[in-house]
């Protein structure tokens, strides 16, 4: 357990502890050098420090895969679950403990393949959680197998002559689910955008789905190389209710004002393949949040017994 957290608990201390981003890291992450997961971890740490979140009042839930080691490196409660099934665990946790800040970290195989069923339904439940899809378009931990988001034609150990199917687009899929409330895309090579997107996702009340594009240095080192090298083939979606990072104005000449309230435009933009688009595609803060919809007033143990006795009268002989 982190000594940082323990010092926090010094209740006699008058001093209010101020967390730095590094206070949220527990140990050195065991990802490969150049892994996109580092970018996501750094952005998250920055967000936690910005929000000054108490380490014990948040939980990071993950599945299985390289990116799912994420919770081990964050000074918070963590649940490193089973492959594809972070979302049900996170949903249960949120139902039991709505006051906790819940973050979910999944990889592309985790979320869009083995966990695809849960992804659809968790989106529809719209429990308030920040959901990170760390998408490097490949299975890394099991060593280079095609995932649903691997680009068509891209070679891997399971598709040595190139992936035969068109890649699944997680944005289009999520935007097609009833009650989806927040859908965004960002990339690890634009850290300020990544951070700003996570900030918006955290602030959104509901299921905030953020696809983070990143490379795997071992197996997909060049998957986004063109976009990394040439900002002119990327378009930023900007809006006062979306993400707008002024410092990116010079680098990215394609900037489109897109109101994230507009689901039709969001779907149309997600479908277009002319350019890569980063930003908030859709956001509706007014949609019902599952744990709020299901909330009922607590009942004391004594009161439960009174009601049980009434219930049993019905079965009385």
């Amino acid at each position, binding site marked *: 357990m982190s000594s940082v957290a323990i010092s926090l608990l010094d209740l006699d201390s008058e001093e209010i502890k101020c967390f730095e981003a590094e206070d949220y890291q527990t140990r050195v992450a065991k990802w490969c050098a150049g892994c996109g997961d580092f970018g996501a971890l750094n952005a998250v740490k920055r967000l936690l420090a910005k929000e000054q979140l108490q380490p014990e009042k948040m939980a990071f839930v993950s599945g299985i895969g390289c990116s799912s080691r994420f919770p081990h490196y964050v000074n918070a*409660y963590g649940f490193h679950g089973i492959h594809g099934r972070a979302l049900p665990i996170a949903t249960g*946790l949120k139902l039991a403990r709505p006051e906790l800040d819940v973050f979910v970290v999944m990889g592309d195989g985790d979320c869009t393949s083995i966990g695809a069923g*849960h992804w659809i339904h968790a989106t529809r439940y719209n429990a308030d959680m920040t959901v990170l899809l760390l998408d490097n378009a490949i299975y890394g931990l099991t060593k280079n197998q095609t995932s649903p988001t691997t680009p068509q034609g891209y070679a891997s150990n399971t598709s040595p002559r190139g992936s035969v199917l068109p890649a699944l687009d997680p944005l289009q899929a999520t935007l097609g689910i009833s009650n989806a409330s927040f859908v965004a895309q960002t990339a690890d090579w634009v850290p300020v955008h990544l951070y700003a997107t996570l900030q918006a996702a955290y602030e959104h009340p509901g299921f905030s789905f953020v696809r983070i594009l990143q490379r795997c240095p071992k197996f997909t080192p060049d998957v986004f190389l063109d976009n990394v090298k040439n900002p002119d083939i990327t378009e930023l979606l900007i809006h006062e209710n979306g993400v707008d990072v002024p410092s990116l104005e010079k680098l990215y000449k394609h900037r489109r004002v897109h109101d994230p309230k507009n689901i039709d435009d969001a779907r149309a933009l997600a479908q277009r393949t002319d350019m890569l688009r980063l930003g908030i595609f859709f956001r509706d803060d007014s949609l019902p949040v599952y744990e709020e919809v299901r909330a009922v007033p607590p009942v004391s143990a004594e009161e439960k017994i009174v009601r049980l006795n009434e219930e049993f009268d019905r079965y009385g002989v």
Partner: protein
Amino acid sequence: MASKETTITAVPEHTVEIITNSGEGAQKCAQIFGQTCAKMGNGVWTVEIIPAEIEPPHHTVTSTSGNIIRFGTDKVTNWGDRSKLAIAFNDQVLLSRHRLDSFADDCIILHESIWENHEDEAIRDGYAKAMKEMSSKNYRFIKVPIEEETLKVVDNAQHGKNMFALGLLTEIYQRDLSIIEKQIAYIFRTKSAKVTELNVELVKNGMAWARENLDFQFIIDSVPAEESRVVMNGNQACALGAIAAGMEICAMYPITPATSVSHELCDIIESYGGMVHQAEDEIAAAGVALGASYGGKVALTVTSGPGLALKTEFLALAIMVEIPLVVLDVQRGGPSTGLPTKVEQSDLLAALYGQPGDAPRVVIAPRTIEECFHSMITARRIAETFRCVVIILTDANLATGVQQFTRPDFDERWQGELIDASPVPEGLRPYDWDHDTGMSRRIIPGTPGGQHTVTGLAHDEESRVSYDPGSNERGQRMRSRKLAVFQSTLMPPPIYGDEEGDLLVVGWGSTQGAIEEAVDRARAEGRKVSSCQLTFLSPLEPGLKEIFSKFRKVMTVEINYSDNLGDPYITEETRRLGQLCWVLRAHTLVDLDCWTSVPGQPLRPNDIYNSIIENIENGSST
């Protein structure tokens, strides 16, 4: 029937069947009749006969829906042997029960009169053939104009014949009409008063018809109970038990025959501050329950065989991370989709060993409907105390069977204690296993200073992923140790009958009543037979080897599959055994035999009795 003298026969018990097409309300009729018998002080056990389909084609041998009610002066612990009286709405559903050998040779059968001379030739033919097939027995057939009489009160006989039938039973068994009226009013409480009125009128018409036309009645005395009692089925008992145990989150996915537990919970749990989450699949239901438990609520997931199979990986995760979780498995016939609506003790081995690696968990099998209720409370307590998974195995027999039991005296402590969420002292680790017991403090999110990441990977006391041999061995040993510690709190199982003899019958779960009734019969003939019904299957109750050693032979009786010695290729070497039999042989090194059967219905005392006699007379000694 001519105007007559009515013969009134006093009997200690009777078994009655109501047999209809699916959708004709047999369950409602039987439910009211069974509840009324219970409320009048009779011992009762009911069994549902349900097709897996909602409403299969009518008037066929596969459309049979019905209910068997065994009731008597004393306590009734099982569905007994063959039925003494049946009411059938058509010849085909009747024939289906005849083919299952469900009726006593002298069974009185009241059946619908319109089919014999029906305008449809196919129906007339079917009727004639059915009656011919059944003529091998000495049933007493009595034709009743059920539909005609029902139409005098309602326009659609489909929704009314069941109440007319209830009226026949009310008269034949001299049931208290005022209780029946109350039951009807309750069942139709959400409908208009007119609906209750019409239903009561139908019951009264049934009674009047029976009074005028039947020449017999049966009297079954009742002994007023000394203590306050309740009557319900096993699924209702489990649902109410979950609430009495303070469980506030139930995550489930629809599956027969478990779903009605969730129905019951859906109706009432919110007024106890809880909720039912209907998940997108069985796996997610386990995951949501686990997530809720991780958050500090002991959650419940409810399922049946195929669902248990799907939850396997999550159960292993719960065991690995030592998060308490209660799983209720209402067993049905397997493997695969199997027999969805019918009983089998199908999941013992899957519940015990369903995971790769060593995944120790507690498995409990309630024996009665009363135990269904209390096992939920026990399960929560064990799960929390030992940070473990507890699987409760009931079955379709307990799920839908209705029985009385002593009304529980609720205790606040059943609802569990608040989890210690005080700041974690420096140096306390997430798995600070006590060296002897493997037990450790459960630290839930929100606890200051307790941050750690639980993982399904092998881990050390700090919950850090660790692949070294020492950590893995230690983790496995500590998780296993908890079962041994729990076992040390259990008592040896009681023996029904003498503590030594020629044969000990060992059962588990719902078969207790039928086994003990069979043992009673054998003992009445001077046979040295006893029985022992296990509730704890993991860990097993202590002292079994010692108990078994006092008997010349030991045999399990189970509702699951085993090969028959003497069948082609089946030898002592190739024979595959009943599920408990395997477990007990491994556990005690005693050469147990087994008698098992998979008829898709509860075991009958008489069949168990025959197996006992056969085993004593023919079997080799243990």
